[in-house]
């Protein structure tokens, strides 16, 4: 949770960590990680996002909001 918003931290191969909101921009359901296709999937209306939070397909109108993230030693700080 970050500011009351469920979030997910993704480890992108070669690109490092990124934190995005899990709240689908379509109708507010929570996206889940689709391990097989390496993407984020909304179970409500099949909105698909890539690992950057960008829209791949489906009804979402906007990408998933990115959350500020930095790594301090062995600690990941969001915000």
């Amino acid at each position, binding site marked *: 949770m970050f500011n009351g918003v469920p979030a997910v931290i993704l480890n992108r191969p070669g690109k490092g960590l990124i934190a995005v909101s899990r709240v689908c921009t*379509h109708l507010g359901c929570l996206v889940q990680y689709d391990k097989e296709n390496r993407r984020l999937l909304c179970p409500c209306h099949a909105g698909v996002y890539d690992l950057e939070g960008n829209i791949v397909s489906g009804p979402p109108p906007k990408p998933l909001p990115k959350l500020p993230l930095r790594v301090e030693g062995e600690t990941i700080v969001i915000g």
Partner: protein
Amino acid sequence: MWERVKNWMETRIGLDDLVRSQVTEYRVPKNINIFYTLGFVAAIGYLIQVLSGIMLLIYYVPHPDHAFKSVQFIMHTVPYGWLFRQMHVVGSNLMIAAIGLHMLTVFAMGNYKRPRELTWVGGALLLFVTVAFGFSGYLLPWTQLSYWATTVVTSIPTAVPVIGDFVAGILRGGDHVTGTTLSRFFAFHVSILPPLFMILVGVHLFLIKRIGISATPFGQQAEEKRPWTEYHKKSHADGYPYYPRFFQMDMLMVMVYLAIMFALITLTPNLFFPEEAIIPANAFKTPVNVRPEWYLLAPYQMLKLIPNKFLGIIIQLALFMVFLLWPFFDTEKEKNIMKRPLLRGLFLFSFILWLILMFWGRS
């Protein structure tokens, strides 16, 4: 004893005259049919909702930590608690079906036409309030299905520019569905909607009594089928008395309503309780099969199909306004839908489209 009570009442309120004028000598049109009973059936349906709802209120706790458990307690521990909950859940769906069917038949018989435009508007608002009852009640058990269906539906207004987020915030009491949302929906369900419903029923009944029941357009002289141009009460002096003839039809249909309700409760007890409806709400996991109740599936599916959410909402609002104010759009004098191929086509097209969207939304 009974005679004494009757005499006491007779002296004070003129019971005999009341029964004579409102029941035994109250006339209904000669060509009345079984569909005219649906308003009465819906009223009995509402009475069942009130009584079963009061029974549920005794044990239900509107708090996120207790709501789910209290509903499970009602279902498994309270004597006959399961019966009252099933009656309330199945009854809410049947009541919407009864009102929907009532409006469909009123539409098909052209009974919304002048001078009954306001009766139609009142009925359409009653259908809207009944759906609001269903929607607000859906969240109360605080299950995965109710939590996420409410999340989805309360997100819909956010597509409207400027005021959308504000409206969603008012509905939820915040950015997300929380205990505040549960409190609001509970208050809405048990203390705001019931008086609103009763006021609308009062207006609806007043208009029916004041204007008189509309005869069907079938098998009448052309002149009789046309709406009149000045006020006069339609009293149907040549019609049948309400009691016993039409009263028996009312009672028959109430029995059919109850038979359907108890058949569904007995034979398909899980019809309105899919797997997600028996799992407590989890704000961190959205289940796969989130969908609203069947009566909201068509507008829900339409929203999914229209790529622009704002456009989807505008189209739905426009369709609702057309439905609500239909008597003012349809000024054609002919009441008989069988003699109006265009209207008949539009009616069938809309109905079939609604069915397609409903089943599509379910899949």
